């Protein structure tokens, strides 16, 4: 009996948690005149897609989605590659100053990005890269956390495997790409998911560096759309937010198991 009551409390809490998201989708699907009614409606009557059709009239949504995707893909691919190369070097190679360099990198782990934003902004101005997507992905190509994380992962892969490959005449790249990385796949997947998610949802950096609508990423675009529709009830804004949020939620439902397992095992956070 006590257990049932606790279940009920937890379920009710869960309903409250998702209520704002349901409200978002319901209003996005409502006729403007039916939206934002009190008491709130939880089923759109009648559902309509007209708000979604109006999104491109106000912001270049497709272009913004493309920018977000492009930046997230380049960032993820780049960060995985540089992290793998650096992690291999720090774990498997011997060179003078290796451990000293690594401890400096570790220190960089606790430096917040906000500390680097002012100097990097000035650098990007010199390079005439402000208000380009390059300004977003270029500094993200090297991910200190990724190096640290993959180094830990690689150090658990037995060195006998490398030695066997060296016997067969393999070089470092062969060992890294054919022996180590295939074995490090779960680590790479977890890191990849998180770098992608962090990039896709990032607001701080694009908000500072991007100003023209056709260069913006989706999160910044949403905020600029809110400025455009003003303070009143905004079904079109809700439609745009739904377009950004819904694909992520659906992807999560599909990949939930591996996604949660990767957070639980690595503690990665966007």
């Amino acid at each position, binding site marked *: 009996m006590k257990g049932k009551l606790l279940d009920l409390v937890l379920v009710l809490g*869960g309903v409250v948690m998702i209520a704002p998201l349901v409200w978002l989708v319901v209003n996005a699907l409502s006729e403007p005149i039916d939206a934002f009614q009190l008491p709130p409606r939880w089923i759109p009557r009648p559902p309509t897609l007209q708000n979604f059709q109006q999104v491109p009239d106000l912001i270049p949504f497709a272009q913004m989605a493309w920018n977000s995707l492009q930046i997230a893909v380049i960032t993820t691919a780049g960060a995985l590659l540089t992290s793998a190369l650096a992690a291999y070097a720090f774990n498997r190679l011997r060179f003078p100053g290796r451990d000293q360099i690594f401890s400096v990198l570790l220190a960089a782990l606790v430096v917040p990005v906000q500390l680097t934003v002012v100097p990097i902004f000035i650098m990007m101005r010199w390079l005439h890269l402000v208000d380009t997507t390059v300004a977003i992905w270029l500094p993200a190509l090297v991910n200190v956390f990724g190096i640290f994380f993959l180094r830990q992962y690689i150090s658990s892969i037995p060195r006998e495997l490398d030695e066997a490959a060296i016997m067969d005449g393999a070089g470092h790249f062969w060992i890294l790409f054919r022996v180590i990385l295939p074995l490090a796949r779960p680590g790479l997947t977890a890191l990849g998911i998180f770098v992608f998610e962090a990039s896709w*949802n990032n607001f701080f950096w694009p908000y500072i560096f991007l100003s023209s609508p056709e260069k913006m990423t989706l999160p910044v675009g949403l905020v600029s759309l809110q400025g455009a529709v003003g303070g009143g009830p905004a079904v079109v804004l809700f439609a745009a937010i739904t377009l950004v949020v819904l694909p992520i939620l659906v992807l999560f439902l599909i990949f939930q198991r591996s996604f949660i397992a990767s957070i639980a095992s690595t503690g990665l956070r966007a």
Partner: protein
Amino acid sequence: MVAAFALSLFHWDLLSTPEFAGLDNFKQLVTDGATVRAVINTFVFALASVVTHIGIGMLLALGVHRTMTRGTKYFVRTAYFFPFLVSWAAVALIWKYVLDPAFGLANYYLSATTNWLASPTLALPTLIVVDWWHTIGYTFIILLAGLQTVPAQLHEAARVDGANAWWRFWSVTLPVMSPTIFFATVITFIGAFQIFDPMVIMTQGGPDGATRSIVQYTYEKGFQSFEVGYAAALSLVLFVVIMVVTGLQFRLSRRWVHQ
């Protein structure tokens, strides 16, 4: 980082030649009331964030860890985790409408007429609630994973020794979980000190600086009023605060975290 330090010694508006300022920017930090306010706001936000995330997250994890039907467990886990996947920009915009005094959900269900984000006393607590809604799913999953590492035999042994539920939690669950709790605390603290998005989108730091955070003030100084040197000095303050608090947590952890 070196560049940030160098910049902090100058007055510069990005256009004219930088002018050497010595420690002027740092002196201004202490005398500028807005900076002091931003530092206090950030500390209040971070402290409240850690307490609510770890406290309620722990209760949730304990609640879900018991035997539940699969369906209930799936629903609860998914429902609490969903908001974490939504970007801050979308979260802040949705909540601006949820909290709208005229047609928002919050006032309707609380039978209130409060203008949450315009109130000098309620605005910051409101943002703490929104932040909690956004990231509790993460804390909850981490704590749940930690809870699942507690060996059932230990509980069994304690039960045989006559320990009641509360004592088993105190002497078995908590010590085994302490590294997880420590990790979640450190991560929540660091994240909370860097808070920026909801302030910029929902309140612009207002009303009257009541919700302005350190990072947001850095942004205002560096990219709106173009006092680049001062902004760099502010960002160093953030860095030092994070370093000191994290260092302190590691030091204190020796007393309560089991390795």
